[in-house]
């Protein structure tokens, strides 16, 4: 049921129609990887062609594996329903999604009828008002729900299919077998994922709105105030995303205290280090502490957590171990590696007091205090939810799905367990059902013959789609971008759209790229273009990281690089927060960084002005 169909005011400028975008050679058949509702189609053409769509490279920079669309589909529902059906955010409907050549495109929807806005405003006032008023108590409850959901996921057992059922099935009169448990376990995993994403957005829309209101006021009162300064006045001190790194620092100190720091020799793998530590009582003590620390702090994704191949520290401890080593070296030199918390707090208070004093009227000082107060109330959720959902929960989720993949591989459906990600979640259900049936009957399943050629074809398609450079946007360009989440979360503004339009007129590499000043400072150095997590190992000391989007868990890489540049990212993106924390210049949301900059080129990153210049 559609509430309203928006006819956005558009300028004459247009991006290509979604119906004009051709399929890259060799990627024919990509549409079969995704559900029908994800595709642009003749039936909805008139509606779809009238809308402005943009590439969501911030969350989904890579082509979508069929299974991994589950994250998009989960937030498609979750984000939108809280806007539309729960809190009735007056001027906004939900955010639509489509897939083009494997890449996710999204489109915001507005409510433009003043009467409808008013009707929604009355609901919003009551409902959002309730949440804002009871935020801390509801958030405490949320943390309980999130942990419970994670625990439920962890508890799901993926049963095997034995030759004969255990005797207990008979002696206890269970009446239910492994086939049922297997399908139910899978369904429970999927439901658990949906549930986690419901929770993800329970507070997020309201959180962003509160922040956006305060942000807009700061920009009005102090035009040109740096985004990071606005953020600094609200950011929390005790942020979960910093905790994994803080734990590594603590473990480094502990290794020195216990006299076992020598185990962390140059170039040694975590397994070698652990084997060494196992030889002494002190070493064993350190390992025991590590094991305790791992849950949950090593459930920390190398990526954003949106893709199955965004592995975590728990899967591969190479980076945290090398980070512990570098902290040990710094501590031995007498450096203080801890975060200067008292200093950060004092600076936050100073900024707030000084800006407030610069406001010209008592009314403005009150408005600032009220809006800042609300922004600070909502911010712990905004800062911490990613750790619960994308890091902690998703690490466990992808690994659970791997268990189903391994089972299917064991029964000959796949050559490799990870092939499961080339199937959409509904197809996985089919494959499991097929397997259960054949197990029950004792005859061959069709799966082992049916799926391998499909997986092989899809592997080739994904490879081709990876080489395709997604166009930044589709359809008519809006004259102004006003939708709050587009601006806030995706960092897409009227200016961004103009920048996207510009390179079409002047093809070829622009020498200067503009983005958001994500973290202050200026740095020059050779560029290293990193398109996905796997290429992270290529980064050398003193290079400038150029990537589609940075992730906070790339921390150890941040100790090597001089600056970071990303294609996508707004003022609230994970990367900006962490770059600031590590005192690294960053320009986010350049749109074309990875396209225009080549590895090895000298670039200048100005994190004060948001400009990246290609020097050579």
């Amino acid at each position, binding site marked *: 049921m559609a509430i309203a169909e928006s006819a956005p*005011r558009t300028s004459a400028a247009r991006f290509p129609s979604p119906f004009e975008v051709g399929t890259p050679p060799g990627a024919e058949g990509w549409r079969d990887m995704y559900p029908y509702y994800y595709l642009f189609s003749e039936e909805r053409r008139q509606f779809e062609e009238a809308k402005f769509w943009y590439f969501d490279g911030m969350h989904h920079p890579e082509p979508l594996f069929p299974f991994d669309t589950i994250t998009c589909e989960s937030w498609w529902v979750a984000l939108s329903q809280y806007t539309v059906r729960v809190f009735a955010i*007056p001027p906004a409907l939900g955010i639509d999604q489509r897939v083009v050549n494997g890449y996710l495109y999204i489109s915001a929807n507005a409510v433009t009828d003043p009467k409808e*806005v008013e009707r929604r*405003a009355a609901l919003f006032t009551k409902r959002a008002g309730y949440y804002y008023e009871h935020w801390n108590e509801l958030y405490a409850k949320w943390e309980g729900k999130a942990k419970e959901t994670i625990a439920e996921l962890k508890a799901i057992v993926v049963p095997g299919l034995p030759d004969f059922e255990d005797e207990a099935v008979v002696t206890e009169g269970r009446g239910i077998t492994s086939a049922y448990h297997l399908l139910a376990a899978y369904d429970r995993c999927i439901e658990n994922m949906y549930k986690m994403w419901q929770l993800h957005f329970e507070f997020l829309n309201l959180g962003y709105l509160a922040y956006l209101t305060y942000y807009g006021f700061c920009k009005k*009162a102090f035009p040109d*105030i740096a985004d990071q300064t606005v953020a600094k006045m609200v950011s929390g001190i005790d942020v979960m995303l910093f905790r994994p790194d803080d734990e590594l620092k603590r473990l480094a100190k502990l290794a020195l205290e216990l006299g076992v720091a020598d185990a962390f020799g140059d170039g040694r793998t975590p397994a070698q280090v652990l084997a060494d530590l196992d030889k002494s009582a002190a070493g064993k003590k350190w390992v025991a502490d590590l094991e305790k620390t791992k849950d949950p702090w090593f459930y920390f994704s190398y990526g954003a957590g949106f893709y199955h191949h965004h592995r975590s520290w728990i899967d591969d401890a190479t980076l945290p171990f090398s980070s512990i080593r570098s902290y040990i070296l710094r501590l031995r030199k007498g450096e203080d590696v801890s975060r200067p918390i008292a200093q950060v707090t004092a600076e936050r208070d100073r900024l707030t007091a000084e800006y407030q004093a610069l406001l010209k*009227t008592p*009314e403005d000082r009150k*408005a600032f205090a*009220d809006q800042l107060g609300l922004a600070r109330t909502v911010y712990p959720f905004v800062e911490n939810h990613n750790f619960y959902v994308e890091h902690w929960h998703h690490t466990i989720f992808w690994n659970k799905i791997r268990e189903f993949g391994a089972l299917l591989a064991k029964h000959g459906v796949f050559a490799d367990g990870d092939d499961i990600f080339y199937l959409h979640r509904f197809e996985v259900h089919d494959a499991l059902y097929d397997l259960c049936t054949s197990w029950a009957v004792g005859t061959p399943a069709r799966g082992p013959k049916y799926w391998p050629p499909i997986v092989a074809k899809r592997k080739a398609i994904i490879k081709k789609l990876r080489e395709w450079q997604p166009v930044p946007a589709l359809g008519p360009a809006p004259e102004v971008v006003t939708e709050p989440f587009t601006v806030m979360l995706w960092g897409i503004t009227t200016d961004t759209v103009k920048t996207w339009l510009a390179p079409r007129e002047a093809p070829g590499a622009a020498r200067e790229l503009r983005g958001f000043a994500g973290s202050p400072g200026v740095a020059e150095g050779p560029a290293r273009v990193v398109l996905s997590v796997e290429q992270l190992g290529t980064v050398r000391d003193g290079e400038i990281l150029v990537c589609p989007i940075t992730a906070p868990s790339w921390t150890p890489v941040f100790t090597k690089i001089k600056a970071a540049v990303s294609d996508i990212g707004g003022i609230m993106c994970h990367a900006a927060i962490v770059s600031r924390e590590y005192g690294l210049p960053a320009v986010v949301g350049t749109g074309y960084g990875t396209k225009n900059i080549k590895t090895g080129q000298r670039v200048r990153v100005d994190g004060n002005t948001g400009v990246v210049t290609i020097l050579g």
Partner: protein
Amino acid sequence: MDPLPYILWFRDLGREARSLVGGKNASLGELMQAGVRVPSGFALTMRACEVFLERGGLRGRIDAALASVDPADEPALDRASRAVRALIEDAPLPGEVERELIASYRALADESGTPEPPVAVRSSATMEDSAETSFAGLQDTYLWVRGERSVALHTVRCWSSLYTPQAIAYRARFGLAPDAALMSVGVQRMVDARAAGVMFTLNPLNGDLSKIVIEASWGLGTAVVGGEVMPDRYWVDKVTGDILQRTIAAKTVQYLRAEGGGVVRAEVPPGLREAPCLSDDEVAELALLGKSIERSYGSPRDIEWAVDAAAPFPDNVLMLQCRPETVWSRREARPLVTPRATALEYVLDAMTSRLPPASRR
């Protein structure tokens, strides 16, 4: 004994000295007392000016020369102005004023370790910090003046600038008594400026109090103040101290010290034109000084500054002049948003203000 002194050192001046030494000189004293780096110097007081004009019947001759002039008759006014200024510039300094001036200049020489230190000689009127800036703008500044005789000569020239045609006409128009015209003169050690310019402790484009805007060019500040050069421009956040934006302009002309005193206008060598004339540290230091000056006055300032070519950082960053900012400071401030009782209402307002006007709350 005369109760009012002829000479006062900047370092002893406070705001209350305005009536005696004029706004410009008094503000330099205020800056020094607030701990800001200002080149040292002294003021010849209004009393010194008064004694000069009264001595030997000079005032009588001036009044006589102006008595029959119609301020609306421009050619006649010009002629009268020239005659009066010649009278003044030919008159000798009263002995006691001259003695004190020479003694003070020598004290400046001792302090600087240079026998004939170059100085700037400037007029400083009582009214110039108030509304009558157009009047203030008519007064003179002489740069790179060296030696006792030259300092005395330029002091008298400053006094004679009380009788420019514009100043005469101004007094006539506002019915000010002719003998109300008095002028203090400042004698200040010259900075050998590598770069100089102006600084506003707010954004002059939109009145934003959280910014400091600095305009800078090579050489003396004359080129920037006179609008002869497109300066480098820096926007600094007053609270964080971060340089938010910078535009480096092609700076074509500069004013430099001339051989044998005075100032010359020169081309900027091509290699320097598009180079920034300040380091980031210097910009930061300027902004820091600007912020502390504003704080000590309690309101936004318009400041002239210079960076010395020889002194080490940060001693090379010097303040030369300081005036109240007048454009934005006089405007009545209105609330930026409609005052609301709760934060939720601000959220609602912010959301709906993004819509086309028809759907706004």
